[in-house]
């Protein structure tokens, strides 16, 4: 017990004597006796380090992981390679065990890494300014909507059904508090069919969308202009290596999930909420922002800035309630993007697209499998199957594959399949062969 409390019994006695107390219990005299736990916590006694690791290993081994379950699932979480350099640097204890950089003189490491992250994200999205991270893709989408509604004064949100369905659920959850009116916009032939009239504060589109279809952002931009709304684009940062940036189409806010850059699948967290916007909205930016400045000697330095947006200063009038964010994952993302470099990002996107096309063509050749729509896809695609998708996933697990993500009723069912740069031709061939048995 108390592995990490250094005090010896003699030291505790000496410290108590200094305080004029005779027992540790007396430290808690300000807590009314009726509230004190008589029996202690109903939590098992502490374990040694090897015993903890044995228990954690037992739990880990009770999962089917990537080693024996080849991943063809995506839907917002992707099985990309994490190189040794990214892993080792991210786990540097100076990054891992630092706090929020409130004392910039001793936090230049984290601050500069975040400044570089913000720059990389602005370049990737094609808009001016990025914050220092939000929790995940869903929370970034919620914050983008909050910004757009505040900027336009319109509560109505046009939310494409091509946006990740669980993220849309999160949007609806938080709309209960903000009062935003969410209108979901249907897909036709795999792409969003925007209304011709009406007013809105935010038009939200995913690019490529949840079913993998590459949306036409000119159409979304037109819808936003007609509706008097800001255009919020939920983008795929890997696809950004091959397709035009959201900023090139005039996106006002660009958000996304940063997990593909250096973060393992990890049952869904911690991931990384990417958030970037045009400079004109910077005073409504949620969360932290790092800026460059100088110290008293004129040396370049970094510091969190425009702090009057934030909750600890602005309190109930803050642009967001975000305090703790995902800094370490943002640093990881900056490292991974630097490791990839410009050409490496292109190559990564290309390799995903190649594997996706190869798998898609082979799957669609199977009886009992057909395309979900004719919309062009890039790194993920949806198929309709005669066998229910949940059944396919269960049976394919016996064959050693995580077959994909089942699509809900709103899409008329089906299976969402993702192929990353990690999948070889032999693995894809084996997957398709197993699918051939399962979909019959």
């Amino acid at each position, binding site marked *: 017990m108390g592995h990490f409390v250094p005090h010896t019994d003699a030291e505790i006695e000496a410290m108590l004597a200094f305080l004029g107390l005779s027992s540790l219990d007396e430290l808690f005299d300000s807590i009314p006796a009726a509230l004190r736990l008589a029996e202690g916590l109903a939590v098992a006694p502490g374990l040694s380090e090897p015993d903890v690791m044995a228990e*954690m290993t037992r739990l880990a081994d009770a999962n089917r992981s990537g080693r024996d379950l080849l991943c063809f699932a995506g839907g917002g979480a992707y099985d990309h390679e994490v190189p040794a350099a990214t892993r080792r640097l991210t786990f540097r204890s100076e990054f891992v065990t630092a706090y929020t950089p409130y004392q910039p003189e001793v936090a230049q490491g984290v601050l500069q890494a975040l400044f570089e992250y913000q720059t990389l994200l602005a370049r990737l999205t094609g808009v001016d300014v990025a914050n220092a991270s939000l929790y995940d893709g869903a929370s970034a989408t919620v914050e983008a909507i909050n910004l757009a509604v505040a900027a336009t004064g319109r509560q109505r949100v046009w939310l494409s059904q091509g946006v990740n369905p669980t993220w849309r659920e999160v949007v609806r959850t938080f709309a209960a508090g903000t009062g935003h009116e969410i209108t979901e916009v249907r897909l036709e032939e795999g792409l969003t069919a925007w209304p011709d009239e009406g007013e809105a504060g935010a038009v939200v589109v995913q690019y490529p969308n949840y079913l993998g279809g590459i949306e036409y952002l000119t159409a979304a931009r037109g819808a936003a202009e007609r509706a008097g709304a800001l255009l919020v684009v939920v983008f795929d940062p890997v696809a950004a290596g091959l397709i035009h940036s959201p900023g*090139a189409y005039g996106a006002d806010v660009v958000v996304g999930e940063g997990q593909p850059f250096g973060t393992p*699948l990890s049952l869904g967290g911690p991931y990384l909420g990417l958030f970037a916007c045009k400079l004109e909205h910077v005073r409504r930016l949620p969360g932290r922002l790092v800026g460059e400045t100088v110290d008293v000697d004129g040396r370049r330095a970094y510091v969190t800035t425009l702090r009057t947006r934030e909750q600890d200063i602005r309190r109930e009038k803050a642009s967001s309630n975000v305090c703790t964010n*995902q800094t370490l994952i943002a640093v990881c993302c900056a490292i991974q993007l630097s490791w990839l470099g410009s050409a490496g990002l292109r190559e990564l996107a290309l390799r995903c697209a*190649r594997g996706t096309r190869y798998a898609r063509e082979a799957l669609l050749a199977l009886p009992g499998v057909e395309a979900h729509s004719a919309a062009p896809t*890039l790194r993920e695609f949806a198929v309709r199957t005669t066998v229910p998708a949940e059944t396919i996933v269960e049976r394919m697990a016996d064959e050693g594959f995580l077959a994909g993500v089942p699509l809900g009723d709103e899409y008329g069912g089906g299976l969402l399949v993702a192929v990353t740069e990690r999948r070889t031709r032999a693995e894809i061939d084996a997957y398709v062969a197993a699918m051939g048995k399962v979909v019959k």
Partner: protein
Amino acid sequence: MTAASGGRATSAPIMGHDEEPTIFELSSPGRSAHSFRTTNVPEWSAEELVPTAHLREEPPPLTEVSERDLVAHFTRLTHRQYSVDLGAYPLGSCTMKYNPKLCDDAASLPGLTDVHPAAPASLTQGWLELLASLADTLCAVTGMHSCTLQPPAGAAGELTGLLLMRAWHQAQGRQRTKVIIPDSAHGTNPASVTLGGYETVTVPSDDRGCVDVAALRERLDADVAGIMLTNPNTLGLFEEDIVEIARAVHEVGGLLYYDGANLNAILGVTRPGDMGFDIVHMNLHKTFAVPHGGGGPGAGPVAVSERLAPYLPGPLPVLGDDGAYRWHTPPQSIGRVHSWHGNALALARAYSYILANGGDGLRRVAEAAVLNANWLRHRLRGIYDIPYDRPNMHEFVASTVSLKKAHNLKAIDVAKRLLEEGFHSPTTYFPLIVDEALMIEPTETESPQTLEALAQALEHIAANPDGAKDAPRTTPVRRVDEARAARQLIPTFDARPAT
């Protein structure tokens, strides 16, 4: 007590005071670090794969560096960064305790990291068991009924709690509009209240530093949805009238929300559920040793009493009658608050920390944290002002009001001088109700010798106020021009003015 350098970082080597170039200035055209697996997938060109309308000619310009330069750059950045592993971090309200290394290893097990979040429960039984066991343990620690692990941070937990409050009042057919918050509260509380669709009503603290119960009663009416309290509060004081407060709030049909920022102080000693709280968020990155990562990720689970359990975000991991775990969404759930299941690896770290400490060890954590904070308060008496000089819990608030009057020594000067002395500074200028506040939380993992070294450093600073305005002088950069950063905003490398 003798002073020793266990938690003091003045020996940390620094080779100079040059600027570290950005990764963009290290870029050299054509250089690269990446490598990809050999796949034998047909090598279709970009033009063959992407419709012309969508295809961009060139990739976004990122940077072009070798792996060697990349590793050197980020390693040098780590040498410009203070951390718990380097030395003591007495940052009040943040609970910067030592983060055990075994938790890093536990959360790096491939059986936990290489699991896709959409994999069905039948393939992820280990994860579901871990999460269900953690939820049960957190309920035992807080005295609550059920727990969601989805909120990824404390503020996310707060907003989740307020939406639970809203859903519960709506189910009772009530329209409530206001949430009460003490003037000593964290800024996230009022910010969350706004996002929860409520109006913030502030209740003042009394001269003992606790909620003014008479003032609270004046504010309680049929419009009040609830109250958010941190207990012990941000002055490090236990709200001794909590039972009376709970009764008064419940009498008008309101709910009590417990901000778990300071839960470290009461582990195994008392529980929010026993005090009458209905909703509790925990900061696993404070209390349960999940490292803070330079600002995150954390984890902010929310536990509730039985009557609020039907509204929790789903899906929740539950043990079925057949002995298998499955995901279950409660019937009146407010809906998801995270893309997946929360910051799962942070949850795994916290679980391994709890296993290592056990129920007895967690109580020891609270005892040592409270002992350290009280010892340091006594030790600093007569050197700094102690505005609320009575037995505190895990932290206390000192002030430089007298030193400012005598020597113009402000809280920020002490903070910057302390950096030169090899310690991170305390939290400054918070809570807002104390002038020139230094909020000090030593945590349980610092030894008495480190506390003495910290006390001697603070004593030395108070006795030698000259030159404090020039501090820090030994750090990688000196005092930073924050006003200029806001006035001439440079949020990216590309926004730098041309030189």
